[in-house]
């Protein structure tokens, strides 16, 4: 096999320009595929990490209805009755608003979450402080900042800010560690009741987060909650979803985008493969006489087939290897570039895995060999006399 490989390499080196052009065809296709898969996987991983931060034993309640949800609508809900549903461990509410916020240097409309203080404790894996502390319960005029908003406003622990209107002054007691979700980092977190008071929407929530008890099936708890809420309220104005359903929803959207972009990349790869096939057909035609000679001195069909398949497979492999390097480069480059331009793109990351690299290499060799298959079979089947006569 080593000898066949060295023969194949020699033939490739014998026509370097054509070999490289063919390799570039595969390279471009493979780079596109690898870059997209790498970014797609990275994106998926970043999203998975966000959801894992919350944990999957969580049920969300939002406004809207069973068939759609609304981020912005608010609703009233008796948390005590939810808490009594079988399987519910804790229930905490949030209100999301964009009031006018003033600090010493800057002011403007900013996203503010009013949180039931217990919520940060219940989800301490998600709300982790970078400086200071999280809301512990019992506070009123304390605020926690997302890392980006803290940086933008130039605020740190101990500073003050004002939320209007009327003016309520808060002391900043903590700054959260950044997460991939840009909304998380851009928001200000204050106790729920104070925000309700400022906005004038007491008893109103944007979201309710429920942790289920260990040993309970999250989905069936969610179903029970949904049913009970419908019965109690006599209308379908709430959307109840498990964390897993939310993740799958996101995953589906990403999946569709990935399939679309992947399809385009696959076309590039297909064009590259056709390039290999074309080059190999030309090689067989040019070397018809040589094939005749090899057959005359004892080459079997399998020998000829092997030689040509190694040639095309090797072109595929080199193209795939360089394409993988380029693709990872593009992935990482895109990530660094976009992150340098905006803070909002922490979800954009290039995943580099051994599996990705290995499967790219195997795929490229296989593509090369498969594209070379028909030309190589033609070569192997040439009748020796005719091949010898061909000049």
């Amino acid at each position: 096999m080593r000898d066949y490989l060295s023969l194949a390499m020699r033939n490739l080196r014998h026509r370097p320009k054509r070999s490289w052009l063919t390799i570039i065809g595969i390279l471009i296709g493979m780079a596109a595929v690898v870059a997209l898969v790498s970014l797609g996987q990275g994106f998926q991983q970043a999203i998975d990490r966000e959801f894992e931060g919350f944990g999957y034993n969580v049920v969300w309640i939002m406004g809207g209805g069973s068939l759609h949800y609304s981020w912005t609508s608010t609703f009233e809900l008796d948390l005590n009755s939810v808490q009594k549903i079988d399987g519910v461990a804790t229930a905490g509410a949030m209100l999301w608003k964009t009031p006018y916020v003033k600090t010493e240097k800057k002011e403007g409309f900013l996203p503010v979450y009013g949180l039931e203080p217990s919520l940060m404790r219940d989800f301490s894996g998600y709300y982790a402080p970078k400086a200071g502390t999280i809301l512990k319960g019992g506070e009123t005029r304390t605020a926690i900042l997302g890392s980006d908003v803290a940086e933008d406003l130039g605020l740190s622990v101990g500073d003050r800010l004002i939320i209007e209107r009327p003016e309520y002054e808060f002391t900043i007691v903590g700054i959260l560690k950044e997460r991939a979700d840009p909304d998380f980092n851009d928001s200000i977190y204050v106790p729920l009741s104070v925000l309700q008071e400022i906005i004038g929407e007491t008893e109103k929530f944007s979201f309710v987060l429920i942790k289920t008890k260990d040993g309970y099936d999250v989905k069936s708890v969610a179903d029970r909650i949904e049913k009970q809420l419908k019965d109690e309220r006599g209308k379908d104005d709430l959307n109840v979803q498990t964390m897993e359903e939310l993740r799958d929803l996101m995953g589906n959207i990403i999946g569709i985008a990935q399939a679309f972009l992947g399809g385009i990349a696959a076309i590039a790869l297909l064009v590259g493969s056709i390039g290999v096939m074309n080059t190999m057909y030309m090689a067989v035609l040019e070397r018809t006489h040589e094939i005749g000679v090899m057959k005359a001195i004892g080459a079997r069909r399998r020998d000829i087939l092997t030689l040509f398949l190694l040639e095309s497979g090797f072109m595929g492999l080199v193209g795939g290897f360089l394409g993988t390097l380029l693709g990872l480069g593009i992935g990482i480059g895109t990530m660094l570039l976009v992150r340098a331009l905006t803070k909002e793109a922490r979800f954009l990351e290039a995943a580099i895995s051994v599996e990705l690299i290995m499967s790219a290499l195997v795929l490229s060799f296989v593509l090369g060999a498969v594209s070379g298959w028909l030309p190589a079979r033609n070569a192997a089947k040439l009748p020796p006399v005719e091949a010898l006569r061909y000049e």
Partner: protein
Amino acid sequence: MIKLENVRKVYPMGDTLVQALRGLTLEIRKGEFVAVMGPSGSGKSTLLHLLGCLDLPSDGKILLQDVDVSRLAEDHLAQVRGMQIGFVFQTFHLIPTLSALENVELPLLFQRVPRAQRRVRAQELLQKVGMADRMHHKPAQLSGGERQRVAIARALAADPEIILADEPTGNLDSASGKAVLELLSQLHREGKTIILVTHNPEAAEYADRIVRLRDGQLWDGGA
């Protein structure tokens, strides 16, 4: 050694069928040096292709060391070519990308002979044909006579019983041609069966026996 019994070969050419061999019967003994002569179109090349197992007859039998090769499948034929027959062509037919040494090694590669063994054998053979000092040259860097000597070394690589030479001096000047014929003679003395297809009466003189073909049949030369 080699027996042809009533061998026919018909080629389709356009709409007509060309009868290249019309019932040829011929026997070549082991260790013989036979020259095959005849004008163009007499069926010389067809005969050589059939003897070399490069092609199959339309009818009749070809026995090679008592094996009927006229019905063998392609891969068996390849095996016979690889082990029992050495070809020497008019235009040498060396692989241009390989050095002289590698060209001589090539038949052994197809016989799955290990690399080190191949190399030693090829070096010995190049020494034998007087090409030891040029074995790392590519065919393009060699003269016609030198290329033909490399081709003879290649034909000998797998130590075949039979050497088939198709106008081996046709593209050479007379001195190189003579050297090649001397070399074939020497192989004959060493016990190889040599079949030489040629136009050239001087070349044919090296043979024990001359077989003349005309219109696809044996011809006694009008004698």
